[in-house]
């Protein structure tokens, strides 16, 4: 007899589940090996001891807390699933619009690619505010001068952040002017006195 069949017979004998035919088969085995009966009897005793000795149900500690914790997790699970399910249903309802929407997206992507390929003034990061962005102009700072011969160009990037202010109409700086050792030359005499003094102290 095969080993697997023997094991099955032993197990079923311990559990008292042998059919008459199987009982006959086991009897043959016991005849061949007389000590088998004693061994199986001891195994049956052990099985009964385990059955009786190990509790099939043990309440988890703090049963109420166990439930409340679990139900909180379940609530979180429900909350996390609900929007996703709604979105999924909405998404599924649009499945027939996929093909034309996909085609449209392809066409748009193609034209967008075409435009990106062309050189553009805005690509340099500088916006011609005078022509294309009147709304942004309002947010740019105003520059005031005491002299009407001065003029300022405010250069901004695409976000409206000022990158530079170019002032035109100023007198040329003299070639011999040394800023590190600046002295009160005739060009600076028109400035307020306190300012001039402050500058003088700073440079000393």
């Amino acid at each position, binding site marked *: 007899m095969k080993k697997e069949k023997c094991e099955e017979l032993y197990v079923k004998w311990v559990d008292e589940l042998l059919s008459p035919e199987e009982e006959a088969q086991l009897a043959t085995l016991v005849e061949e090996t007389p000590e088998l009966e004693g061994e199986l009897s001891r195994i049956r005793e052990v099985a009964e001891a*385990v059955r009786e000795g*190990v509790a099939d149900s043990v309440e988890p500690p703090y049963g109420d807390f166990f439930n409340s914790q679990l139900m909180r997790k379940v609530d979180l699970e429900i909350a996390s699933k609900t929007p996703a399910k709604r979105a999924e249903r909405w998404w599924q309802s649009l499945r027939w619009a996929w093909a034309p929407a996909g085609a449209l997206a392809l066409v748009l992507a193609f034209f967008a690619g075409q435009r990106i390929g062309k050189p553009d003034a805005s690509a340099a990061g500088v916006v011609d505010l005078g022509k294309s962005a009147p709304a942004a102009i309002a947010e740019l700072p105003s520059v005031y001068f005491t002299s009407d011969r001065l003029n300022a160009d405010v250069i901004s990037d695409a976000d409206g952040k000022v990158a530079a202010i170019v002032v035109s109409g100023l007198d040329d700086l003299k070639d011999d002017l040394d800023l590190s050792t600046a002295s009160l030359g005739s060009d600076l005499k028109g400035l307020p006195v306190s300012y001039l003094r402050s500058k003088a102290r700073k440079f000393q």
Partner: protein
Amino acid sequence: MNFSRWITSKQLMAPAGASPGAEAGEQEVPDRKLIESCKNGDTQAFEVLVTRHRGKVYAMIQNMIKNEADAWDLSQEVFLKVWKALPKFEARAKFSTWLYRITHNVVYDWLRKRKIESDGELEDGLLNPADIAAGARTAPSAVDRPDKALENSELGDRINAALATLNAEHRETILLREVQGFDYKEIAKVMDCSLGTVMSRLYYARKKLQTLLSDEKGEM
């Protein structure tokens, strides 16, 4: 202790740890009705289901991993997975088999992770309490809960110690068969193995248990 006397004392203490509502007669609403309600999002029905089965799930996990805190957490994990998977549960299947299948997966995932994490380290779960000398300074000591009083009995301790030495598959097979009373086919479904494997595991696990218990004391 005399074996038959021990059995009698055990029977007197049997209600300890029994899950409320676990008996079929106490069930006001059958599981399948509760499951239908759960499928419709009824969390109260689910809580009833949890209260009904948590004792068995916790006992099974506790007997498998021998750690109360982790058994508590894993039981939570099992029931959360049950909630998530309930929509897929088919009414023709037996709920308890399905529940223990999930429990099996959770426990084996945990055992796998624990093995990876503690690879090369000394694992407490592998220690056999019987190997520690009673008077040893390092012998762990703890005050048991009343519901563990049975385990404190001489034979109960020996059975638990012997079960702990079995490998996970053998231990689970024994627990499902002897303690939870599953039939062979149900065990095969829970453990996702063939009927022949169940028979083989059951035979060798019982034989090993018998050897272990008779080695300690000649009574069995």
